[in-house]
């Protein structure tokens, strides 16, 4: 299995952190046992990461707590000075009688209207708050779902790319299957699929990769790479699958290689017939 140096190091860190399990863990351990360079690298990483585990020897002094207490007291005082606890002094004694009556009438009106106004305000407030909370929650949930989706996507990609490097053909077919299930696929995956199509030793894996590439017909660069791959293929099954794919994409750049194949007397009859079909379908009228 070929992994880049960075991918190796990443897996080793995960192994040290206890983040690898099951097949992946076994695979990394197995591969590591076979290479002294990797073993040395692993030991070095282990030593480095263990150095982080040394407990911090310094502790904050009491001064920090004392300063905080002072800060807190100051802030509380500020609230006390400006906040709702500010009371107006009661000065009823010097008020004129008429003013007192006015006050009483106002107080009466207030006693009737205030509860109604308060109820209406409460109702509106509750509705508004409900909307706000609901919207907030929905947004938070959406964010969470997006985050989880990205996470699943990233880990699916990693699993897929690692599976593609396995020795067993069925694992590699499984990897190609993963690519079919992914909603969003980036360049890394399409490149891996193209590589598989071109270089995988097993024909079934190559076939699966050819089929998996079918959904990327909207990417001109990738289509061109498939045309180049088609021109080099010698296996009839792959050639036939790719002809169907290129017809489906209406990829005119495939005309040349298809024509060549059509005229290639060494090629099996069925392949030549399919290539002729392709030429007919792609030829500009």
């Amino acid at each position, binding site marked *: 299995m070929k992994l880049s140096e960075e991918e190796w190091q990443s897996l080793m860190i995960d192994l040290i952190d206890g983040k690898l399990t099951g097949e992946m863990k076994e695979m990394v351990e197995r591969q590591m046992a076979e290479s002294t360079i990797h073993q040395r690298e692993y030991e*070095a990483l282990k*030593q480095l*990461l263990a150095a*982080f585990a040394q407990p*911090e020897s310094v502790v904050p002094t009491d001064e*920090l707590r004392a300063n*905080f207490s002072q800060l*807190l007291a100051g802030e509380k005082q500020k609230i006390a000075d400006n906040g709702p606890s500010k009371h107006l002094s009661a000065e009823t004694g010097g008020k004129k009688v008429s003013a007192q009556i006015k006050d009483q009438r106002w107080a009466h009106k207030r006693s009737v209207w205030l509860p109604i106004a308060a109820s209406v305000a409460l109702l509106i407030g509750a509705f508004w708050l409900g909307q706000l909370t609901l919207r907030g929650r929905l947004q938070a949930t959406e964010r969470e779902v997006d985050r989880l989706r*990205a996470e699943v996507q*990233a880990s699916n990609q990693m699993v897929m790319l690692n599976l593609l490097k396995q020795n067993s053909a069925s694992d590699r077919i499984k990897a190609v299957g993963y690519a079919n299930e992914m909603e969003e696929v980036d360049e890394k995956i399409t490149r891996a699929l193209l590589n598989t199509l071109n270089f995988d030793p097993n024909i079934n894996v190559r076939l699966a990769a050819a089929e998996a590439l079918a959904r990327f017909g909207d990417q001109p660069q990738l289509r061109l790479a498939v045309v180049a791959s088609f021109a080099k293929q010698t296996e009839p099954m792959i050639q036939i699958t790719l002809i169907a794919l290129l017809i489906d994409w209406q990829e005119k750049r495939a005309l040349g290689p298809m024509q060549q194949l059509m005229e290639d007397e060494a090629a099996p009859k069925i392949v030549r017939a399919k290539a002729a079909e392709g030429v007919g379908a792609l030829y500009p009228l």
Partner: protein
Amino acid sequence: MIPTDEEAMWAVGSGDLDQAGLLFDRYHVGLYHFFHRMIQDRELSKDLTQNVFVRLLRYRGSYQPGQPFRAWIYRVARNVANDHFEKQKSSFVGLKPIHERVAAPDGAEQAEQVVTLQLALQQLPQSDRDLLVMSRYQELKYEEIAQIMGLSLSAVKVRVHRAIKKLKELYFKHEN
């Protein structure tokens, strides 16, 4: 019932400042270590920790209910550190030379490892150092770091692993 960090901070935001004491109890040592591991200066670490709590009180209204508090407070801490470094750049007041700042703890081999690690860490770019202090020392989850730094989870993982790679080279260079 003992309030969670989030409940306590929400209470602080609503005016119940006494709950800030609880958050101080829970976080001041961790934050102090966070700064100390980053800058290796006790006095400065104390001041910066204090600044975090000044900001916690001053910006208590900006805390949204349900927001993970640990990520929130470490984002504040990171801002405090960044502001400090910015100020330092403009005033040309540098830190003490590194060998004066890195104090060797007791115990020969462990002490050597700690000092080597600190020397290597100090040579990393600040963003890498931040990442390693958060993930390896403070043991913040990649998820939390992603929230603090505004990055995706996979980007955090890649950056942490790359920072470890750089650190490894520096560490063994110092060790030899």
